[in-house]
């Protein structure tokens, strides 16, 4: 047995994050941890990696009890971790990120050439292509993840933890990753894999352990279970994996984008002359491989990124292309950013404060010149209940909520504003099945009352499942618009890859 964790318990103020958890991982195996948001998966892994100390329980590696006080001790015994939030220094190069904490062959001086050489060897052996001399901030998410894996391999990790490694990857990148991971188990390494995507779990796992509320609620194998069963084990009730989408007749166009041109972070054009309409009572989904201008499109519509002079963004017949976010919101725009923690919510603010982030100045939440705390509390209590946000209280800072619950807070806020037009980016990234189901049902309910929704997601199943029309985006343009009845996964996949009319 490579790893045994026995009776692990960990308490945080107000939360029992791990409650007597047992976990066993064998060499050459992929062991999946499955659980709702906040179930305690990351906490358990942080204990393994020495970032937290357990309150009770013990850890054995190859039968020997270990006490891991810090990450470097974990690394020394061959444990590697790819964190849910990357642990990279963006201003350093790949080689420097890998070299951190290692002994240099040149004494006090860095020996980046040697490190780069090894990186190249490892990336060749494992199919992880990266350029060691590039600074991390210049890299796309998928590349950054490869750096994280290289970091672990460089240190010769025999047990590698991957905390939601696929949340930010495109389907193609996920496939590539799985090939790499399989190669690693073939070498005899043990892997702990965390994901909310059941098809991935079914495809990759050897063993599956399910957590709920900090405790183990089940243990199984893919061959002995199904996606539906897994979902039920996690959530404790049956879950609809594909949303019901009753037919509604679309109304008038509410969001009309004409000739939109937007620059990306690196100053080059990311959106080039894009045209698109979204009507009331309709969800238009954008399908596309990440990096084809989706993010820039969403931010330009939200008013967070400048649209070039000739662009038009009509919001209910008003051209808002040069207006600020506040005015666009006043005109009925709702916006859910893909960057949950940085753009969507304020970590230090409480749940109820985040729920009024947009509306705090409205009559509803003010009395004269002052905030109306009674109304604000009421709003908080109502929305927390309605959207089933798991939080100790409405006064808890959102930073201590799990990812899925933060997303629910944001959606609760944006949806209750009853937007006329809504831009939603990656609504269920990193969100557990149960919550995702709920979020999907809310988006559809909103559509049913006439909201025009522009949905941006890298999860193709989500796009196909939710959208009335699917717009395929490639290199900053819409290359095809497909009604949902005609949507075929493979065809869309080809279009996303830039293969037209074949």
């Amino acid at each position, binding site marked *: 047995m490579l790893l045994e964790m026995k009776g692990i318990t960990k308490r945080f103020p107000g939360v029992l994050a791990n409650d007597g958890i047992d976990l066993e991982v064998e060499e050459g195996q992929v062991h999946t941890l499955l659980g709702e948001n906040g179930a305690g998966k990351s906490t358990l892994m942080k204990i393994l990696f020495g970032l937290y100390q357990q309150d009770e329980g013990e850890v054995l590696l190859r039968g020997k009890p270990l006490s891991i006080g810090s990450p470097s001790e974990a690394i020394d015994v061959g444990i590697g971790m790819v964190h849910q939030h990357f642990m990279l220094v963006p201003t350093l190069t790949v080689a420097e990120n890998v070299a951190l904490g290692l002994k240099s062959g040149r004494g006090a001086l860095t020996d980046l050439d040697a490190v780069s050489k090894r990186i190249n060897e490892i990336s060749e052996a494992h199919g992880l292509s990266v350029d060691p001399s590039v600074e991390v901030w210049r890299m796309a998410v998928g590349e950054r993840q490869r750096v994280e894996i290289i970091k672990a391999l460089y240190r010769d990790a025999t047990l590698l933890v991957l905390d939601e490694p696929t949340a930010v990857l495109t389907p193609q990148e996920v496939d590539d990753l799985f090939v790499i991971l399989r190669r690693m188990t073939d070498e005899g390494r043990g892997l702990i894999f965390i994901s909310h995507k059941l098809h991935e779990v079914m495809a990759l796992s050897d063993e599956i352990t399910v957590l709920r509320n900090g405790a183990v609620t089940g243990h199984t194998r893919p061959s002995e279970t199904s996606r539906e069963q897994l979902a039920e084990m996690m959530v404790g009730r049956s879950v609809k994996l594909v949303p019901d989408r009753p037919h509604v007749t679309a109304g008038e166009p509410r969001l009309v984008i004409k000739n939109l041109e937007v620059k990306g972070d690196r100053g080059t054009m990311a959106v080039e002359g894009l045209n698109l309409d979204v009507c009331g009572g309709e969800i238009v989904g954008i399908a596309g491989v990440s990096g084809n201008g989706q993010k820039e499109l969403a931010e330009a519509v939200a008013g967070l990124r400048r649209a070039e002079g000739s662009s038009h963004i009509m919001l209910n017949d008003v051209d808002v292309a040069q207006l600020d976010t506040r005015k666009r919101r006043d005109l009925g725009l709702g916006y859910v950013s893909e960057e949950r923690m*940085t753009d969507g919510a304020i970590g230090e603010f409480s749940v109820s404060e985040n729920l009024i982030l947009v509306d705090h100045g409205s009559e509803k939440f003010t009395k004269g010149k002052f*905030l109306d705390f009674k109304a604000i509390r009421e709003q908080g209590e109502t929305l927390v209940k309605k959207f089933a946000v798991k939080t100790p209280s409405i006064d808890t800072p959102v930073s201590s909520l799990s990812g899925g619950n933060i997303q629910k807070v944001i959606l609760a806020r944006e949806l209750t504003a009853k937007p006329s037009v809504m831009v939603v980016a990656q609504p269920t990234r990193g969100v557990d099945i149960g919550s995702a189901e709920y979020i999907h049902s809310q988006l559809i309910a909103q559509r049913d009352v006439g909201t025009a929704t522009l949905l941006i997601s890298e999860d193709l199943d989500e796009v196909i499942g939710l959208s009335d029309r699917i717009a395929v985006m490639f290199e900053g343009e819409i290359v095809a618009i497909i009604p949902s009845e005609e949507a075929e996964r493979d065809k869309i996949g080809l279009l996303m890859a830039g293969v037209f009319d074949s």
Partner: protein
Amino acid sequence: MKKLLGASIPLLAALVAFFFGAIMLVALGASPWEGLTSLASGAFGSGDRIAATLVKATPLILVGAGISIAFRTSVVNIGGEGQIVAGALLSTMVALAIPDVPRILLVPIVMVAGLVGGAIAGAIPGALKAYASVNEILSTIMLNIIMLQFMNFLLRGPLIDPLEVEAGTRIPQTARLSDNAALPTLVSGSRLHLGVVIALLAAVAAWAMLWRTPLGFRLRAVGHSPAAARSAGIKVERHITYALAISGSLGGLAGAILVFGSESQRMVTDGSTAGFTGSAGFNGIVTALFGGLHPLWTIPSAVLFGGLLTGATNLQRALQVPAALAVALNGIVVIFVVSSNRVRSRLEELLQARSEFKNSSGGDGPSADVDSLIEEVEHA
């Protein structure tokens, strides 16, 4: 229990700091006991001295409250000195221009002029930060230098007392300003003037603004996460400018109070800003941080530092030790008290862990901790 702990640790740290002070006194050949008693009696020993301490605390309260607002918006304001001077200069100019307005009007007018002056001096680095990405630490420090020279220029040029020109002495000071602008004293025969009350009200207003109004909500939102604030529709640039302008306006108000609450009722320069401000622009930062960046806590914090400053004058007089001792002691107090925060939070963690243990068996309802969480969110 925790509250008690929270309050007692910094006081303990202050005591340790005074112990260091005592060692220095012994080294200087003075009696440490006499030193400490004369320090204490100099600060709080009589009605007059308490009045002097409160007067000394006044600019600290104002600057401290202003600093709290800026820091809460994640804007570092090291420009207190310059902002005090700006407020003082503008209010002085107004008092020179309209000396005959009745007192009931002129006092508020010059106070507002102070606010405006400080606001301008704050808004400049604020706007530079918001719209031109000029780091505010740099620009506020530079603006202190600029305001200093501007003060020297005005006081020895355009604003100089005509009598000084006539006499040929050219002391860089304004003429004695209109008595109609003088802040009325609260207790006749004492130095306690209306400025103290104004400062207290301003601190309460700053607190209410930060935690009770939409504007404060937005400022704190911008302070915690400009990106999230922006995507919620808050105009980040504008609010950064506001934060520094409001912060500066309180400094400016302090400047006006320094002028119109002074015994000399005029502005004088000795060529440094400290000569006019008594370094309130810097000490106000200490006061604010000491008060946990909470405008209301800056009040006791300011009284403590005000007392230290007035007490030091007495100490120097009574024991004939250099005044520099008080400045050094001030620094030691700050160092010990900030260091003690860690000790406090450690102890609090221990206490918390114990009470946690009792709660957590229940599962998810940490009712006892909600209050402390609110408190933390409000204080942190």
